[in-house]
């Protein structure tokens, strides 16, 4: 296990050498992730980790990949997607063009879920899904739209709970243990690297999805990210967070109205 002081040294080095700023990350989780990396990569001394970070840019890429959490699934929290399907998309449907931002999209499972919802609402043709993540490696996976076939049984169940009426397997082709999702979806997606800590607003959106990303930030950084979302949302646009995330403790709170029990807020100011 690394000490609190060593963690702070590592955070500083990674920032100074490579510009990745983890100083606003929640320490409890970050420390677990770094400990895990330390074990997986078989370090005995902290100084070895440090010199590898200083001398090998490729290793820092790996560090960023391992330290950020990339656990995701299609139609994660199916009842959330049911609300999007039944209450949010009918409102977005009235717009000539729909822009959605998946901030911290990881390997893209939730982006494809949204594309399926848009297609079923007959809105995909006038939608654009921007999907960003700090981690370039997961974005490469997301772009391909290829996921393990063994996950499809669970995703298909999630899809049905979310109110899906079609045969889920119509959306992908199965091959050698992989499920490849239709190019029709990928064609409506734009993937790019974006760091919520240091990068600014790049467009105006009707819906921002950022689910289970803010939990890894401390309160200050959460607040900054929420301000970024506020600046990137159209008037009456929606912000969707993870089921246990809230804007309750933030300064943008009074600019938003919570929809219902789901973690969806409408920008009202």
């Amino acid at each position, binding site marked *: 296990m690394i000490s609190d002081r060593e963690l702070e040294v590592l955070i500083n080095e990674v920032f100074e050498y490579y510009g990745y700023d983890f100083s606003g990350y929640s320490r409890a989780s970050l420390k677990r992730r770094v400990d895990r990396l330390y074990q997986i990569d078989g370090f005995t001394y902290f100084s070895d980790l440090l010199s590898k970070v200083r001398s090998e840019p490729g290793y820092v890429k790996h560090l960023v990949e391992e330290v950020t959490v990339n656990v995701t699934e299609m139609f994660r929290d199916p009842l959330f997607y049911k609300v999007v399907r039944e209450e949010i998309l009918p409102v977005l449907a009235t717009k000539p063009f729909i822009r959605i931002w998946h901030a911290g999209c990881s390997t893209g499972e939730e982006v494809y879920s949204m594309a399926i919802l848009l297609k079923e609402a007959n809105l995909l043709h006038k939608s654009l899904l921007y999907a960003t993540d700090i981690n370039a490696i997961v974005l490469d996976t997301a772009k391909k739209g290829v996921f393990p076939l063994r996950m499809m049984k669970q995703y298909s169940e999630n899809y049905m709970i979310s109110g899906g009426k079609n045969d889920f397997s119509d959306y992908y082709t199965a091959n050698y243990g992989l499920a490849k999702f239709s190019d029709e979806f990928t064609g409506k997606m734009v993937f790019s690297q974006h760091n919520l800590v240091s990068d600014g607003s790049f467009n105006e959106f009707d819906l921002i999805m950022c689910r289970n990303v803010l939990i890894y930030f401390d309160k200050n950084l959460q607040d900054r990210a929420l301000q970024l979302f506020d600046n990137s949302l159209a008037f009456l646009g929606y912000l969707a967070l*993870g089921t246990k995330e809230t804007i309750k403790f933030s300064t943008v709170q009074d600019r938003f109205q919570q929809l219902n029990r789901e973690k969806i807020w409408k920008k009202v100011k």
Partner: protein
Amino acid sequence: MEEGKINVKCQVVIIGGSAGSLEVLLQLLPNLNTLNSFALVIVLHRKSGEDNLLENLIRLKTKVPVQDVDDKTPLEPGNIYIAPSDYHLLFEKDHTLSLDTSEKVNYSRPSIDVAFESAAEIYERTLVAILLSGANADGTKGLEIVKKSGGITVVQKPASAEVPFMPVNAIANMQPDYVLDINEILKFVTNINL
């Protein structure tokens, strides 16, 4: 509390359990009227996606306030906090709770080991960790770390556990400070900070 055992005030009591542990809580909680200036955190293995069922059930059984756990919820004495399904529960230095969706540990999320370890790191000697009935090895490693950090460890007496594997595994691999049956656990918790 045994004489001379604790001179430090306990800030947090954390209870971990799996199969058969809900029944223990439903016997314990109705008999607890207040918590003597500590927070009670409950980490149970539970079905993913199950919505507030456990929270509502426990609310029915106790007079102590049960707070909803969102990310960064402040941990305050006198309240009960229940780890939500599908997240690991972590403790921060500023006495807030953090959530984490990283890989399952011991096939579990929330994992008792993860929560115990994280609580031990922040609360050290002011932590009491109690491991109840269950069918897997989760919790043993966490208890060891609680003990190493100076906290007090309690394991449910296997004979009183519906599924004894979890307490048996703990007792076989570390030396808990106390091995107690359900009534003794109640007495123990009631006497904390008295």
